[in-house]
């Protein structure tokens, strides 16, 4: 099972590496243009120091990933993504098998952590605005009895739509918030990153 976690983490990492420039450009429109760079350095540390992480349990792997991110990336992205992985790992606890319910519980716990750490909620034009609808859809698809591949597919589609839907929003968190009205009409970088990652995972699951 740790293998699955490793697979997904590496997939996320590679997708982040491929999109580093793109993510930074998105953040550069009304933010400060560091998002792709920051998060890529985080996953770089995760991958480079993979063997120094305790992989005895999937939950430990996730906590270890969190510590690497928090040790490499500062600010919003470091603490938000670090908190997310930390919460997911804590939620998983000592489990060795990950059920669909576990996946949803991990996401929910990560989302709560992000809200607290970031003093934020839906509608602030952050990655939550793409992540929450995607997780809602994932849960619904699971509940509807869809298989993992189909559920991921459906979540990815919703995630992308939700990311696109950040465009008319006013940024209320992060450096983009300083632009005020000017942030309207631009995509939120973190939200787009969510969509890109969901799409990557969903595509990989099919193969």
């Amino acid at each position: 099972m740790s293998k699955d976690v490793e697979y997904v983490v590496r997939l996320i990492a590679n997708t982040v590496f491929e999109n580093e420039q793109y993510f930074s450009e998105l953040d550069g429109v009304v933010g400060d243009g560091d998002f792709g760079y920051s998060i890529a350095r985080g996953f770089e540390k995760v991958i480079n120091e993979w063997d120094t992480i305790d992989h005895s349990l999937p939950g430990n792997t996730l906590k270890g990933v969190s510590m690497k991110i928090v040790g490499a990336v500062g600010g919003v992205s470091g603490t938000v993504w670090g908190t997310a992985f930390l919460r997911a790992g804590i939620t998983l606890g000592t489990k060795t098998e990950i059920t669909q319910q576990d996946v949803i519980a991990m996401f929910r716990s990560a989302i709560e952590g992000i809200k607290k750490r970031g003093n934020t909620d839906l509608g602030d034009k952050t990655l939550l605005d793409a992540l929450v609808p995607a997780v809602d859809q994932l849960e619904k698809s699971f509940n509807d009895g869809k298989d993992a591949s189909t559920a991921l597919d459906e979540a990815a589609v919703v995630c992308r739509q939700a990311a696109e839907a950040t465009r008319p929003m006013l940024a209320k968190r992060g450096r983009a918030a300083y632009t005020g009205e000017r942030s309207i009409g631009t995509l939120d970088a973190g939200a787009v990153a969510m969509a890109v990652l969901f799409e990557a995972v969903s595509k990989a699951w099919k193969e």
Partner: protein
Amino acid sequence: MKKFVNDPKNFVPEMLKGIALANPKTLKYIPEYNLIMRADIPISNKVSIMQGSGSGHEPAHVMAVGRGMLDAACPGNVFAAPPADFVYQTTKLVASPKGVLHLLNNYTGDTMSFNMGREMAEAEGIEVRTVTINDDVAVKDSTWTIGRRGVAGNFFVMKATGAAAERGASLEELEALGNRVVAVTRTMGMALTGCTPPAKGTPIFTLAEDEMEMGIGIHGEPGRKRVKMAPANEIVDELLEAVASDIPYKAGDEVALMINGMGGTPISELYLLYGYAHEQVEKRGMKIKRNYIGEYCTSLEMAGFSLTLVKLDPELEDLLAAPAEIAIRVF
């Protein structure tokens, strides 16, 4: 991108190496946590003071480490807050029995890293207090943003608390002093050009040849408005009005006046701006007791400047004038 850089990812570490090599007796560079600290700390009967923020604002804060100012600075990458773990590690390294003061420019990212790092340090029994600096009048307070940004006014907080710590002030006293300085310090900046973070490779924003941006942030965050270029004096008038009407400062006040270069503006122009700003501040009936002209908090190679007023009292004036030994010096 026209910059002196080898591998953009190593921009900050290579700069920190330079600082350490230039100050072998007084400063230490800890590559593992990307930090610069005084070689002689922690000192048991002195509160340690540290600040972290994105890089790209030099001399703030890594070149402001030394006796009489910061005990350590833990910078992040260019324009990115330091990792929470580094805040934690730095806090541990500088921790003295009298506690640790965190100075923090008011940005979401910095606040989140410092909050997380502080929680981690406090879990180990280290006493930490935080002073949040938010001197930028350009961005109006609102219910939903984190509030005003911390910009060049951070110099005065570092200088005053650094001097007071050297004189034995307690953590509570330093926290109060820091907040007191913040309460009397206001800044507004503007830019003529954008700037290019090394890892990005292209300008964060661009301004047309006849355009300038008023109220710019030190990360290139848009300001109040983009307008046509104007004569130097008119620009000073506008910044001064925004700053001086904010607390507001009033006739009879004794003040410090800072003209801070954003990185790409030559010192000749800063003095030209100062000359007019000085006259206008005095015309408002204030008395300039100290002045600061140069680069204190920059945005890489951005052309532009900010104007800061600090309302002084005799204690504050004395702390600002106290000696300090930092990397930035002239000879």
